[in-house]
């Protein structure tokens, strides 16, 4: 409110010269409304719905926190590795500590011909070439992992993949969901019946077991490289579009009956134009909200699967794959630096998308007064 008043006073001062007599009364009426601009005619400027949404969105603290977090996470994962000396393809960290690995002695007992018993021990000694499970240091902010990778760099690279998966899947889901949901809602009849039954079936299939089956299949075919992630994305998309389709269909069903659609029909617009120009823009608010919230849940699914050690490919870092360390007692108890940072990143990402989605939902809601 403070800012608004300042603005109004400023414009008032400017206009005082030209329209001095009416200024007194103008001040009272104007301060109630949102005004800016130079001349009197320009001053009564109505904000477009989009601007109002933006205004409401940026006023909410939580959504700003979310937005900033998302930006920071993106910079962290996409720009961050550029500054890391360990981000190369073979970025294993050479060992600097020179601690020798000594295998436990193996006891061998043998008896000589004299009948005396001797015990011999074999001790294997080796100097590792890479710094494995290194401590947190100035060079390695989170230490190094069991293969000698710098964990902080892995965290950044993992973010790239996890966030990218989220975006790709949500866009594919949205495309399929909007097309099929739009068709179902617009045409109704048997098209609607058919599509909605498929949606019902898909929403009855639990995601996690499907993913477990997928993982067992991939393991059976011995696919361990990055292709696993592509299969993950395909399956997530195929089973995830149902929610968006249902949302779009519901919206279109109610919009279809409104007057502006009748007007569109009367002006003889083509079906495609009616759907994409007149119906979809009205669904967009809900769609954007559900996409934002969906992003969080996809990142969560990826992380869950990674935690269960299912879909994460060997050698490629994802946040999910990194949190998998928490399943191993050794790392869970002794090396929190392995699994806590990726966990925090995942939580932050989901939280941020939820905050932004929530903020957008409130901002899009015309009934919201604040």
């Amino acid at each position, binding site marked *: 409110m403070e800012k608004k008043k300042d603005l109004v006073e400023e414009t008032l001062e400017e206009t005082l010269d030209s329209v001095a007599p009416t200024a007194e009364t103008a001040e009272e009426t104007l301060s109630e409304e949102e005004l800016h601009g130079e001349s009197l005619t320009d001053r009564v400027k109505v904000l477009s719905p989009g601007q109002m949404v933006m205004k409401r969105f940026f006023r909410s603290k*939580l959504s700003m926190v979310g937005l900033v977090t998302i930006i920071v996470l993106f910079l962290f994962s996409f720009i961050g590795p550029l500054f890391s000396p360990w981000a190369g393809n073979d970025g294993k960290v050479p060992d600097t500590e020179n601690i020798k690995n000594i295998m436990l002695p193996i006891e061998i007992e043998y008896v000589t011909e004299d009948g005396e018993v001797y015990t011999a021990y074999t001790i294997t000694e080796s100097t590792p070439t890479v710094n494995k499970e290194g401590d947190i240091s100035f060079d390695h902010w989170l230490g190094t992992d069991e293969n000698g990778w710098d964990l902080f760099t892995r965290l950044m690279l993992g973010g790239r993949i996890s966030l990218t998966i989220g975006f790709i899947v949500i866009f594919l889901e949205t495309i399929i969901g909007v097309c099929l949901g739009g068709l179902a809602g617009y045409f109704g009849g048997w098209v609607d019946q058919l599509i909605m*039954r*498929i949606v*019902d*079936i898909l*929403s*009855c*299939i*639990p995601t*996690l*077991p*499907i993913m*477990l*089956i*997928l*993982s*067992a*299949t991939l393991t*059976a*075919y011995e696919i361990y490289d990055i292709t696993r992630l592509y299969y993950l994305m395909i399956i997530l998309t195929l089973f995830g579009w149902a929610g968006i389709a249902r949302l779009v269909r519901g919206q279109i069903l109610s919009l279809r009956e409104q007057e502006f659609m009748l007007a569109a029909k009367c002006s003889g617009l083509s079906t495609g134009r009616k759907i994409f120009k007149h119906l979809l823009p009205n669904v967009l608010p809900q769609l954007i909200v559900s996409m934002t919230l969906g992003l*969080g849940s996809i990142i*969560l699914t990826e*992380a*869950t699967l990674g*935690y*269960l050690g*299912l879909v994460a490919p060997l050698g490629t870092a994802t946040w999910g794959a990194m*949190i998998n360390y*928490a399943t191993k007692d050794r790392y*869970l*108890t002794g090396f*929190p630096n392995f*699994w*806590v940072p990726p*966990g925090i990143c*995942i*939580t932050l990402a*989901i*939280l941020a998308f*939820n*905050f932004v989605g*929530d903020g957008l939902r409130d901002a899009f809601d015309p009934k919201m007064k*604040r």
Partner: protein
Amino acid sequence: MVKYCIKRILLSLLILFGVSVILYFLVRCMPVSYLEQKLASSLGSSGGDVSFEQRLQELKEYYGLADDSFWGICKGYWDWLMKFLQGDMGVSFKYNRPVEEVIFENMGISFAISFVSLILQLIIAVPLGIKCACNQYGKLDYIVTVLTMIGISFPTFFFGSIMIKVFAVDLGWFEIGGLHSNLPVNATDWTRFWDMMWHLVLPMFVLVILNIGSMMRYTRTNTLEVLNADYIRTARAKGLSENKVVYKHVFRNTLIPLVTTLAGILPGLFGGSMITETIFSIPGIGNIAYSALREGDIPFIMGYNMFIAVLTVIGILLTDLMYAVVDPRVKLGK
């Protein structure tokens, strides 16, 4: 009403049929050699002799795995469906026992955990949600909203791992996992019971904290809606005290949507929570299913997933029916 119910039930059957088709064909994407290997391991150590080969072939025939062509899979599905309709889900490769037996045996503990945590959630979430809605945009509302958001966003496995690390490993207050510790043979039932309860504190805590958020938000949104209703204005206008308005008029009407969602949750109680049970290694249905699923145990995968799908369908049906039961304005039909 009856007509509506029948229509819905028929529709549900159609949905279940679709689910089973998708599941079966997905499961059969696994190469047969892999399944053979799993089957062989379930047959035990009697490998090598002729009878082993024979038994393997018999088993493959029994499960309809022998033929890997499209029609072979279709036939396998048909056989499975016929058996399923007769209530026979087959014998699990991994556990070597009938699937339905394994499911029902391990359901109890899952149900107990989910049920207790659901009650706890209700006790905490509903009053808090109403309180927040009554002081919308107040300090409490703000804090609780942020906290619930954090609760919703926290991945189960991460929160669970932290809890284990802090409370079980570092502080040593609770057990890392499992249900029982090594008690002396002569321990009384009472001690055993408390021992089990002690093991379940952390899992339940995790479940409650992570699930409470959505319920609270739901209560809050609904209360806000109720607070704007005309009858609340009437109640205030006729001079009722704020307490009476909130506890008598708002509270009861907030329960309407809540009861309907609860009807949806109820069947889910039996399905177990896969991740929580796996983290805390509780031998519930979720954990059992998890290890079976990982190993391509076809009868169990089909059985378990159909079990879950049936529960989901019942949940949806109950939710819709509850609307009509709780709110007399809702008329089912068409």
